[in-house]
Each structure stands twice: as structure tokens, then as C-alpha cells.
């Protein structure tokens, strides 16, 4: 039973079959909102899907064997781990197994950015390298508030499972921690104001500069899945509906995720891009400040 459940959550919901279209939809929604905020019409609904298919159908550039291998494996690893993270999201809380294990989920989410860093370096392009090192700095910076906030939630709920946290965490802690978590999402998704890692005007396309055709398609795929994983993480923490009927849970999960995309897109459309040092400073001071206060509140209430 657990195996079937596990497979379903990996392949159907919230896994591949749901996450792929959902990721593309979120990417489209972000671009569309951005365009509307700028007084444009924006891309058609199927745009991310067509982008993906077109990239897959391009002829790959011939590369030296090891480099070509790494440049394919790294984005694949990013896709696989993010998909794994999505499968762990506790939309069905009693699924057993590792479902909803917070530690495993967070480490899987971290694999994606790590692959992007490595991927930038192995592409042996100067700009890929700079993009990768920026990505690395940012990963370090936002992980401080990200982990503290999660820890505050865990401490408050006394549980390492997502569902447990979602049910038991005290509301003041939860609100503070969620603010810190949401602030971390734009970095991972390369959205303004924390998009220094993909600053097109400075370093071409950052770590993916040298990636072409199918290899780039894999990065795009990983990116789409990251949207689902991150918004899903927040969504499953924000609204504890674990004891409701499963259709209600699914609807709430999807609705909150989409609402989050809307909020993030508007924030991105109305800000400029902060510099690397400014971003890092923001996360180490403000971001961590919020997360720490969540932690303090959690301990005070214990």
C-alpha cells in the first residue's frame, strides 16, 4: 500500500503528472502578471510548454565527452531531486513512508541550486562561472534564515514531519517563519529583487549561459518544478487542513500555491534587482532577524 501511495505521489499527485503542468502554469502566470503589470499582453498560455518542447527538439551542441556528460547529468539530478521533494509534500498526510519528512524534503530542495552551481562551473564559460559563484553565495545567504525559520517551526511543533508542523506549530511562530520562508523563494526562483544570480545584463544567462537545446530544456524543467516545490512547501505549512477530506486539501493546496505565485510576481514586477552584496546582507540581517524572532517566540512559548 505504501509503495503504491509513494509511486502515486511521485508520479501522479503532487508528483510528475501534476507538478509538470502546474510548474508550467506557474511560470506562465508569473510572466503573464509581469507583462500585465507592464501594460503588455504577455505570453500565450502554453508558452512554457512550447519553449520546453522546442528546446528538446534542438540539436545538441557536441561537447567533450566528460563535459557533455556532466552538463546532462547535473540538470537531470536537479529535476529528479526536485521531483522527489514535491512527492514528499504532505498533501495526503497519512501516506506513511518518508512522506512529509521535513529534513529529507529540505535537503532535496537544496540539491537543485547545488546542481546549478556545479553546472555553471563545468560549463567552462566565464559567465557561467560568475553566475555559479553568485548562486553559491546566495545559497549560503538565504539558507541562514530559511533553516532558522524551519527550525523555529519544528521547535514550536515538536515534530519533524511537515504534517505535524502544519498542525501543531503556534500561530505567532508560524506567521513569522512563513514570512522568512516566503522571502527566500525569490532567490531560488531568480525573481526580483533577489535575482542577482541570473542578472542577464551583467552575466548573460548566469550559470546556464553555455547550455543549449535539450540540456537547457532540463534546466527549464527543473526551474518549473522548483516553483511547485517551493510554493507547495509554504502552502502545506500555511494552512493546516490535514483532517479535512482530501479534495478540500488538494483545493487549498493548489489555491494557496497559486496565490503565492501572484504575490511573488507582483513583488518582482515592482522592484529593481539588488546587487549580490545587498541581497546577501538583506538575508543575513533582515531575513535572519525575522527567522530568529520566530525562533525566540517558539522557545518562549515552550
Amino acid at each position, binding site marked *: 500500500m505504501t509503495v503504491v501511495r509513494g509511486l502515486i505521489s511521485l508520479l501522479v499527485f503532487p508528483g510528475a503528472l501534476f507538478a509538470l503542468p502546474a510548474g508550467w502554469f506557474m511560470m506562465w502566470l508569473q510572466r503573464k502578471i509581469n507583462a500585465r503589470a507592464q501594460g503588455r499582453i504577455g505570453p500565450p498560455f502554453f508558452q512554457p510548454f*512550447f*519553449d520546453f518542447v522546442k528546446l528538446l527538439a534542438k540539436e545538441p551542441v557536441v561537447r567533450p565527452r566528460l563535459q557533455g556528460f556532466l552538463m546532462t547529468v547535473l540538470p537531470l539530478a536537479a529535476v529528479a531531486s526536485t521531483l522527489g521533494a514535491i512527492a514528499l509534500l504532505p498533501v495526503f498526510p497519512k501516506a506513511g513512508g518518508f512522506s512529509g519528512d521535513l529534513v529529507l524534503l529540505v535537503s532535496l530542495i537544496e540539491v537543485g541550486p547545488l546542481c546549478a552551481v556545479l553546472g555553471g562551473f563545468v560549463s567552462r564559460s566565464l559567465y557561467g562561472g560568475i553566475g555559479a559563484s553568485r548562486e553559491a553565495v546566495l545559497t549560503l545567504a538565504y539558507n541562514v534564515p530559511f533553516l532558522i525559520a524551519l527550525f523555529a517551526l519544528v521547535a514550536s511543533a515538536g515534530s519533524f514531519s511537515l504534517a505535524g508542523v502544519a498542525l501543531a506549530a503556534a500561530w505567532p511562530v508560524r506567521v513569522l517563519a512563513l514570512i522568512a520562508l516566503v522571502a527566500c523563494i525569490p532567490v531560488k526562483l531568480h525573481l526580483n529583487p533577489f535575482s542577482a544570480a541570473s542578472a542577464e545584463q551583467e552575466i548573460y544567462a548566469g550559470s546556464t549561459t553555455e547550455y543549449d537545446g535539450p540540456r537547457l530544456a532540463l534546466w527549464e524543467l527543473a526551474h518549473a518544478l522548483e516553483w511547485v516545490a517551493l510554493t507547495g512547501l509554504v502552502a502545506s505549512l500555511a494552512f493546516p487542513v490535514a483532517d479535512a477530506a482530501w479534495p478540500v486539501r488538494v483545493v487549498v493546496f493548489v489555491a494557496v500555491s497559486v496565490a503565492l505565485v501572484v504575490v511573488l510576481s507582483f513583488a518582482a514586477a515592482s522592484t529593481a534587482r539588488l546587487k549580490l552584496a545587498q541581497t546577501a546582507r538583506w538575508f543575513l540581517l533582515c531575513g535572519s532577524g525575522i527567522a530568529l524572532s520566530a525562533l525566540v517566540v517558539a522557545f518562549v512559548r515552550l
Partner: protein
Amino acid sequence: MSLLDSLVRTARRRSPWLFHLNAGSCNGCDIELVACLTPRYDVEQLGIRLEASPRHADIIVVSGPVTRTTLEALQTVYAQVPDPKVVVALGSCPASCNMFAGSPTVVGPLDRIIPVDVYVPGCPPRPDAIVAGIADAVAILCGDVPRPEPTHVPVVADACATGGLS
């Protein structure tokens, strides 16, 4: 098979990504290309995106009469764009060298250096004309329209040696 084929064609038609290369233009064409992205023309509706890296591009848009100093970079970029790719010559400059014909530092026109598929005439062409030109390029890209025969066998060394059209 044919289903997959038509899916790929549709995807190519709906997602052309451009790389813009300024080979010594006067900026006139370049700002009109940028104007295509802005609210009035908004080519993102058609899935068109201006990409920063040639590795991501499907269509190379070249403006300018090709100066000696940009020649090498032009060839590198052309080689970097993965197949299938289409070249659009933007403006009169890459088509004929415009009023710069005869200059010792100009090695164009463009079709002497790389094969050109679509010409967008004008000095500069209006954004509407540019969008129409990209649409032609997309038709070639997805195979609706056959690729035109190259007008020249690209003879780069020759163009360099004679120093342009004379």
C-alpha cells in the same frame, strides 16, 4: 511519429528566441528591435524572446554592414547558435551596406559572410516590419516555407582581402 513531428513544428513556431548581433550598425535598427519588446508591439505575445546567450537562440538577427572588427565575433556567434537556426538581416545595412558601401573598414554585405534567410528592408525598418520579418523567419524555422537558396557562397577570406564591396 507524425504527431510528434507536428508538435515540434508547433513548438518551433510558437517559441522563437532571438539573439541580436550588432555588426557595426548606427543603432537605428537596434532601438527599433528593442521597441518591438515594449508595450505597443509586445512580441512576447508571439512567444518571441530576446535571449542573452547565443546558445539559447533560434534566430540570429544581424544589423549593421559588418565592420572588420565585428567579423570574427559574427562568425563565432553564428557557429555557437545550435541548429536549426535562421538568420535575419535587419535593415538596409546588412543587405547592401547602405551608404557605407565602399568603406575600407566594411566587409559586408552580410550574405558574403554567413547565409542570410530573411531580409527586412528599411533604414531602419519599422517595428511592424521587423515583426513581419521574424514571422517569415519562423516559417522557415518550422519548415512551413523552404529555406531560400544562399545568394552567395560565403567567401569570408575574399571579403576580407578586397576590403568590402568595390
